[in-house]
């Protein structure tokens, strides 16, 4: 509290001091009899020189920052698409840096040179069609080149992947990423968010997961049965607002249950196999050098954005919509470490769309392996696919869980 008081006193005293200085200044100008609307030649020239000085500050500052920090921030691009992006980015930078220097120079140089001089009248020059045409056409031509090159690149980057590309899904939620490899068949299993349960966090669609979801919805810890039990229990007293929210909860869950039952009725069990061989991978995403990847993205709760700074790739993840992007890594993590002269360097997947308090911590390390290493890792990993890991004996487990809840 004391420090606040001191700050307050300093502010007030400072203001009063400034006001007194102003009075002194005003009295002195009154003595000199110059109005506050007239700029003396001395002051005018001082400001003109400061213009030139500022230009130097601006240019030297820019060159210093460019030399010191230039591209070092994230290193060279590590994907085929990223290399093309960087090439185009550099080209654009050359163009805009030239414009930046040229126009800022003219601006500040003119400000300096054409400062008011006694006896010199300004040159009356209201327009010149040729000049105006010049600076309409030249920018238009430069921009045409930029647009054409940009769109060529854009079409390539956003184009469809071929069948040889490995399919990976990245699932985002507050505040982490989960990867799902498509497995040996290279087809990602289908999904529906309503199928989310404890042992099916990614909501994959199979006959068993539908059954599980129905069971959980009906008899799970917060399922319909549990809510009904509370509502129908005459021994406990519930206040109106709790009662109301329980009822809303109940009707929402009944609606979801009806949809699940419909889903079961229409489900084609031939789709199951696409999901069973999928491989779920947390914490670290492993990729293979030289292999094209097709990524699908999903979001569980709010918008996120998958940002791969080193591969120059980025796409938002959207609840209710699958988005996609693709790239082909060109350097293994080891090779990049050597190049960056940093033995601890890692590729990264960051969240780049505000998604809640811990947004800044949401990330996934990416490791790019050589072909042999990747193959070894994958063959070991594929024994723990979705089915063997989460549904070794599915229905028995579900029945047991449902039983325990009902007994509660």
């Amino acid at each position, binding site marked *: 509290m004391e420090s606040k008081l001191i700050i307050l006193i300093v502010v007030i005293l400072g203001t009063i001091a400034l006001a007194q200085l102003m009075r002194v200044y*005003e009295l002195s100008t009154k003595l000199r009899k110059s109005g506050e609307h007239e700029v003396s030649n001395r002051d005018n020239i001082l400001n003109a020189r400061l213009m030139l000085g500022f230009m130097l500050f601006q240019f030297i500052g820019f060159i210093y920052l460019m030399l010191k920090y230039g591209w070092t921030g994230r290193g060279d691009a590590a994907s085929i698409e990223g290399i093309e992006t960087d090439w185009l980015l550099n080209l654009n930078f050359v163009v805009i840096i030239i414009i930046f220097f040229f126009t800022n120079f003219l601006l500040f140089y003119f400000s300096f040179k054409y400062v008011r001089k006694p006896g010199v009248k300004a040159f009356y020059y209201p327009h010149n069609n040729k000049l105006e045409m010049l600076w309409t056409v030249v920018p238009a031509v430069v921009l045409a080149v930029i647009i054409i090159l940009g769109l060529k690149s854009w079409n390539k980057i956003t184009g469809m992947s071929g069948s040889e590309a490995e399919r990976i899904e990245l699932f985002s939620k507050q505040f982490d990423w989960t990867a799902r490899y498509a497995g040996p068949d290279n087809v990602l299993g289908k999904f529906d968010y309503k199928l989310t349960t404890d042992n099916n966090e990614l909501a994959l669609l199979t006959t068993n997961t539908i059954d599980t979801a129905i069971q959980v919805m009906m008899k799970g810890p917060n399922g319909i049965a549990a809510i009904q039990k509370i509502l129908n229990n005459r021994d406990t007293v519930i206040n109106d607002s709790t009662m109301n929210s329980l009822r809303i909860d109940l009707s929402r869950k009944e609606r979801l249950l009806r949809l699940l039952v419909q889903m079961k009725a229409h489900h084609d069990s031939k789709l199951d196999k696409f999901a069973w061989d999928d491989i779920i991978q947390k914490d670290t995403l492993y990729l293979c050098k030289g292999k094209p990847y097709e990524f699908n993205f999903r979001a569980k709760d709010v918008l996120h954005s998958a940002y791969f700074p080193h591969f120059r790739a980025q796409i938002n993840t959207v609840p209710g919509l699958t988005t996609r992007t693709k790239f082909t890594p060109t350097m293994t993590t080891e090779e990049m470490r050597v190049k960056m002269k940093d033995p601890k360097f890692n590729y990264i997947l960051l969240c780049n769309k505000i998604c809640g308090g811990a947004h800044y911590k949401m990330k996934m390390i990416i490791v790019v392996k050589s072909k042999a290493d990747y193959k070894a890792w994958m063959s070991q990993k594929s024994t723990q696919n979705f089915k063997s890991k989460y549904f070794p004996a599915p229905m028995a487990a579900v029945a047991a869980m449902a039983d325990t809840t009902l007994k509660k």
Partner: protein
Amino acid sequence: MASVAHEGHGHDHHDDHHHEEGFVSKYIFSQDHKMIGKQFLITAVFMGLVAMMLSILFRIQLAWPGESSDFLSFFLGNRWAPEGILKEDMYLGLVTIHGTIMVFFLLTGGLSGTFSNILIPLQLGARDMASGFLNMLSYWFFLISSLLMLGSLFIETGPAMAGWTIYPPLSALPQAISGSGLGMTLWLFSMAIFIAGSLIGSLNYIVTVLNLRTQGMTMTRMPLTIWAFFVTAILGVLSFPVLLSAALLLIMDRLAGTSFYLSDIIVGGEMLANHGGSPILFQHLFWFLGHPEVYIVLLPALGLSSEIIATNARKPIFGYKAMIGSILAIGFLSFIVWGHHMFVTGMNPFLGSVFVFTTLLIAIPSAVKVFNYLTTLWKGSLIFTPAMLFAIGLVSTFITGGVTGIILADSALDIAIHDTYFVVAHFHIVMGMSAVFGMFAGVYHWFPKMYGRMMNMRLGWVHFWITIVGAYGVFFPMHFVGLAGAPRRYYDYSSYMEFNENSYNMIMDLNVIITIFAIIAALGQVVFLFNFFYSIYRGPKAPQNPWNSTTLEWTTPVEHLHGNWPGALPVVHRWPYDYSKPGSDVDFIPQTVPLADGEEEH
């Protein structure tokens, strides 16, 4: 008094029987455009100060993350900065409200609200706005929305925290972040009221410009300020309702259980039944306003600076017709470029390529404007009033921030830097700094008209040099933070320690530099505030036409009167840029002077 405001053209108007207005009708519920303009200005300056303070608070966190700061605990207390360390949620709250206030309350309400009100009737030769009452209403809507927005900073769950773009589902789900509870509700209601006020104001400006021009004031004799305000008002009328509808749909998703923006969501362990909505719909609606908004902010600043540069270069603005054409072209194009904010949202890539094309087209009229400014300075006779300095500063920031827009508008390149600090640096320079510089230029230039007194010039110079050095000191290094791949809206960059320490060190070095410059620039504004308020009461009395300017506002008496001109309305005979015209003895010919025999109009 009301009858005075609605004097038609050509009538003789005598104000000999001048009524003394009551305090309330003169200062509070005033229907005089000059007073309303000043009300907008003071309110907006206050809002701007608050937003600047918020930015200093989060800049301290970014430069010295996790370090206890007395400054933070002084302003945020134990709730939001326990032990002087900022809370994660509040960091996002500060960023969100900083952006919202700066874009809408300072640069829309403050810039267009202030100067459209003061200058449109004065420069057109009108007694007042078309409707004084609606004009008053527009200010009061603005004030109420300002108070609601400020109020949201003080509630228990905190202000809106979803960024100034308030993308749902984050902004729709209180389970996702605490600020999406009452804070978001207040944000939405505040903005709804703001939009209503802005619409009323804009309609009034348009009607006034079209109908209340004095005799001889053809559209092509209007100062460029008026052209800028006019197009700005049209942009506002066409685009703000779309934001209102976006906000209303969001309010319904939040309060009425609809699913416009929500689909397939599980949040806080709860499976929502909403299905079929799309968050991308919101982004389309938001940016349909959001992009024209950039020009709603920028055009008035460009208009003001055109006027100020011509006056203080003692030269006609170069290419008057081309300037009007550029304003119209920018206004039109601004409606068909919104998708460039959405290249990586999952929008169809083909649609993205259309937006690349339209966006880069905007660079052409912008380039025309820049070169016209440069040619206006060429062979001028420059007088560096504080207003002139800020106008030149505006041209510089418009260039520097504009060129990086070329990169961001190119979808293939945008992927690599979208939502990084590169973007933050870009729009702060091109839109934030340019508009703020335009606003300062306007305040310094028209202060004598607003308050009948002069501001102190030396303090103005000090203010300018601190501000421009501070501005570049903040936003130049910020580009490089972005090029290092640092995402915006990160509470800190500690996670970089785990994968790239060099990057981390670089980001931290630059963040410290940025914060120091930001604090210097913020302190520089104290000079302005002092000068502004001191001069209102104690500044030397202003002469009628302190800058030897040609436009009509300088033909009104220094003492304000309701109705602007004591006698008949002035009649206009020429364009507003007859500076240093050959054959004339003085270096400016006011618009009211008839053409001499054999004199050609420009």
